[in-house]
C-alpha cells in the first residue's frame, strides 16, 4: 500500500486489515480509524539472527508494527521525507533514516565490513554509522528521512559516485560500495581538507544524498 506525501515533511499511510506497516517508534503524528501500534522487538523481520545483528551493529532503531484500518500520518523531527517505491529491487538504508515501510518488504541487516576488506571495516568508524546497514527488498513503499532534502544521483557502470559518508542516506539497485580516499597520506595526517574519506558507489542504481553533513 503506497504512502502519500502530504508535504515535504509529512506522509500519510493507509492501513487495511490483514496488512501491516513497520515504522520507527514514536514517529506517528496523527491517525484516524482503528489503528493499533505495538512495539516490535525483532525490528521487523529477519528472525533472531537479524535481531542480534542489529543489536551488535547499532542498527537497532526501535520499530513498531502498525495494524488495523485507517490512515496514519508519519513525520519525525521535521526532517525531509522521500518515498521510494520498490519493484522487486533492493534498497540499502541506515536504520535511523528509515521512517516507515510496507510490511510486505523483506528486511535484513547486512554486514558491510565484508566489502572492501580493511577499508570496509574502517567505513563504519569513519561514517559513524556502523558496519551494518538495513536492506529492504521486494514490492512496496519505503519512507526515508534526510536533513535538508534529497538529491538523487544516478550510478552507471562507467560513472561511479563518491559520497561524503555523513551526507549518504540510502542507495538502491545493484551497487557495490567501498570506502575510498582522494587524498595522500600526508594530507590525512596533517592538514586535512575535511574530505579524507568517501563512499564509492559503483554499479547500476541510484544514491540518495542529503544537503547536509549532519546526522539525524
Amino acid at each position: 500500500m503506497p504512502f502519500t506525501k502530504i508535504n515535504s515533511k509529512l506522509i500519510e499511510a493507509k492501513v487495511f486489515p490483514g496488512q501491516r506497516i513497520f515504522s520507527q517508534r514514536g514517529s506517528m503524528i496523527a491517525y484516524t480509524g482503528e489503528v493499533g501500534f505495538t512495539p516490535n522487538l525483532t525490528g521487523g523481520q529477519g528472525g533472531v539472527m537479524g535481531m542480534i545483528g542489529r543489536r551488535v551493529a547499532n542498527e537497532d532503531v526501535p520499530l513498531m508494527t502498525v495494524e488495523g484500518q485507517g490512515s496514519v500520518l508519519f513525520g519525525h523531527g521535521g526532517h525531509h521525507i522521500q518515498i521510494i517505491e520498490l519493484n522487486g529491487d533492493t534498497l540499502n538504508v541506515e536504520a535511523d533514516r528509515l521512517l516507515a515501510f510496507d510490511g510486505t518488504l523483506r528486511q535484513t541487516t547486512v554486514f558491510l565490513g565484508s566489502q572492501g576488506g580493511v577499508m570496509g571495516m574502517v567505513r563504519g568508524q569513519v561514517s559513524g554509522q556502523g558496519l551494518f546497514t538495513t536492506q529492504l527488498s521486494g514490492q512496496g513503499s519505503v519512507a526515508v528521512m534526510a536533513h535538508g532534502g534529497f538529491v538523487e544521483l544516478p550510478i552507471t557502470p562507467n560513472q561511479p559516485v563518491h559520497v561524503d559518508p555523513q551526507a549518504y542516506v540510502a542507495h538502491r539497485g545493484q551497487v557495490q560500495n567501498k570506502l575510498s580516499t582522494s587524498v595522500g597520506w600526508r594530507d590525512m595526517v596533517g592538514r586535512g581538507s575535511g574530505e579524507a574519506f568517501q563512499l564509492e558507489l559503483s554499479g547500476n542504481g541510484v544514491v540518495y544524498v542529503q544537503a547536509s553533513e549532519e546526522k539525524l
Partner: protein
Amino acid sequence: MAQFRLQGSKVLAVDMTGDAVKARNGCMVAYTGQMNFKKLSGGGNGLRGMVTRRLTGEQMEVMEVQGQGTCFFADRATEVNLVRLNGETLFVEADNLLCTEGSLHTGTSFTGLNGMASGTGLFTTKVDGHGWAALTSKGPAIILRVSQGQPLRVDPGAYVAHTGNLNRALKSGGGWTTLIGEGGGEAMQVEFTGEGLVYVQPSERLTFGGDV
C-alpha cells in the same frame, strides 16, 4: 571554466573540466568523476591573509577542489545563492561563503565595530574578480537595493553579504535607555548607504548586538 548550478535550493553542483574551485572545508557531499581535495592555508591569499585571519577570528577553512566531473556542495541544509561577479567586490561573512570559482580573489577586510556587533569578528571576507560565488543563508536570502537617499538598516544577525559601493555604519535603534534598560531586542542595526545590493537572510544568528 567551472560551471555553477543549483540542484534544488540547498545543493550546489559544480561541473569541472580540470579546473579548480575554492570551497568551505568539508562541504562536499558527493561527486562523480575524479576530484582532489587540498586544504588551503587560511583562505586568504598569501601569508598576510593567513596571519590576519588568525588574529581576527575571521577564519574560513578553505579547501581547493580540482578535478574532472561534477562536485556537489552543501552546508547543514542551508539555502544556496549564486552570485555572479563581473569585476565588482563581494563582502560576505566567512560562515556564509560556500564556494568560489578559482579565478576569484579572496581576502579579508576590516569592518571595525560593525563586525563586532554582528558577532562575526572585526573582519569580513572580501571576494573580487570575474566569476561565480555561492553563498549560504539560513532560509532563502532576499536581495535589497540601496541607492542614494535610500539607506537601508539591517539586523546584524540577518546580514549575509553585500556588493557595490556601500558604506556600513553601526546604528542604535533606540535611545540610551533602550540600550541599558528594557531593550526591544533590536538595539543595533547596520546602516548601509551608497549604491549597492545587500543580501539578507530570514533568520538571525546570535550576535552581540542582538543581546542588547
